């Protein structure tokens, strides 16, 4: 069996052009190496036999296009991922925001919602959930449907519970969900303050002003120009003295907004100050 990729660089560009023209989804600013890998992965997952047929299916079958978007974007996430980050949220960021009468939080690229529920748990434990609103957005409507259900595999709970404890959580993590066969269903009161909505960071504009914006492990899939554009969008959507949180390998450095942002020690969290 050949290990050569089925879809070459030129064909990647063809597909990018197609989906922009036919569906208005703009992947031109996405990192090509990652995009190409995802396309080849989908091609072999779905046992496609030729590029022409694959291209035709994407272009003509809007149901398949939904799957395309879901599989091309990366939706790997976990609860309380990077516990030290959640510890900084709990100990430093959220107590600073506690003085606000109302706390608006934007989770950009929320995927299947694990971060939204983690955030709600921390807010609840700090007695801030009632006056908070979590706007959880993603480009991909399918993952948002999953996020709204608040159901995650029970098999993940051991890891999530360990993450939660490492992040400074003091409660019994299992008190936040009920186990039903292979599924952990999180308490409905956690999602009372969540709003799920599609939002495309590439094409859509600012829709509110926030005190805290989280966008972790999304920018790594974008090229530098698109990263700067999205950071500008966050800057336009963040109140002065608000906080911006990125993934462990992402940064505001080198971007035009960097001079207005001061980084908190150790974590990838910046405070706007201008």
């Amino acid at each position: 069996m050949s290990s050569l990729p089925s879809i070459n660089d030129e064909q990647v560009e063809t597909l990018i052009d197609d989906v922009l023209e036919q569906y208005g989804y703009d992947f031109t600013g996405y990192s090509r190496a990652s995009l190409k890998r995802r396309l080849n992965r989908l091609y072999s997952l779905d046992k496609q036999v030729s590029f022409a047929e694959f291209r035709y299916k994407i272009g003509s079958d809007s149901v398949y296009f939904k799957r395309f978007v879901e599989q091309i974007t990366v939706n790997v996430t976990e609860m309380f991922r990077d516990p030290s980050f959640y510890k900084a949220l709990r100990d430093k960021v959220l107590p600073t925001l506690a003085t606000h009468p109302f706390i608006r939080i934007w989770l950009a690229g929320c995927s299947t919602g694990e971060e939204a529920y983690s955030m709600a748990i921390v807010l609840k434990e700090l007695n801030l959930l009632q006056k908070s609103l979590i706007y959880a957005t993603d480009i991909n409507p399918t993952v948002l449907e999953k996020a709204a259900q608040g159901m995650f595999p029970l098999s993940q709970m051991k890891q999530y519970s360990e993450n939660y404890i490492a992040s400074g959580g003091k409660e019994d993590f299992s008190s936040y969900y009920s186990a039903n066969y292979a599924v952990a269903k999180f308490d409905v009161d956690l999602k009372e303050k969540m709003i799920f909505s599609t939002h495309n960071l590439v094409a859509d504009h600012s829709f509110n002003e926030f005190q805290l914006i989280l966008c972790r492990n999304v920018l790594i899939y974008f090229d530098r120009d698109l990263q700067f554009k999205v950071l500008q969008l966050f800057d336009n959507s963040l109140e002065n003295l608000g906080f911006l949180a990125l993934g462990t390998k992402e940064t505001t450095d080198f971007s035009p907004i960097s001079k207005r942002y001061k980084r908190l020690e150790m974590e990838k969290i910046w405070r706007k100050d201008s």
Partner: protein
Amino acid sequence: MKNCDALLIGGSAGSLDVLIKVLPSIAIDITFPIIIVLHRKKGTDSLLSDLLSSKTKLIVKEVEEKENILPRTIYIVPSDYHLLIEKDFTFSLDYSEKVNYSRPSIDVTFQSAAEVYKDKLVCLLLSGSNADGVNGLITVKEFGGEIVVQDPKTAQVDYMPGQAILRANVDEVLEIEQMADYINNLK
């Protein structure tokens, strides 16, 4: 001698000891970057970079996403991310599904590099207890690159290099003592 624009080294259990033995003898005037993909627990990155940089005068650094790949530099792939190489010779990081139960996966980086460096790539696979990296070597070979493995007899865990010899058409099998010379002769 093989043309080399990049040397990639992959390894798992038992590979760190090999690097510690080999790095001190690598010449500081090599003309290519060395990119190291090691399986390990997450959150131990700075310790690993510190340890390896104490063994060489070459610059040792953890990969930053979208940075330019420079010669005479040893790059360490961060834990819990896959590393991909862009056509413009910059790095991309990727937090997608684990491959072979691993993130970073050696296969992912080898395959990505194969497409970019083609016949100017050399990949070395060291000691390890699973077969991650073997499919990557096969791809590298198909693109004309050179593939080299640690002699399984000298490996703490011989499964990974053993599988490579079994399944890929490897160019060289090297004992630990031969590795630095081999690397220093790449141009």
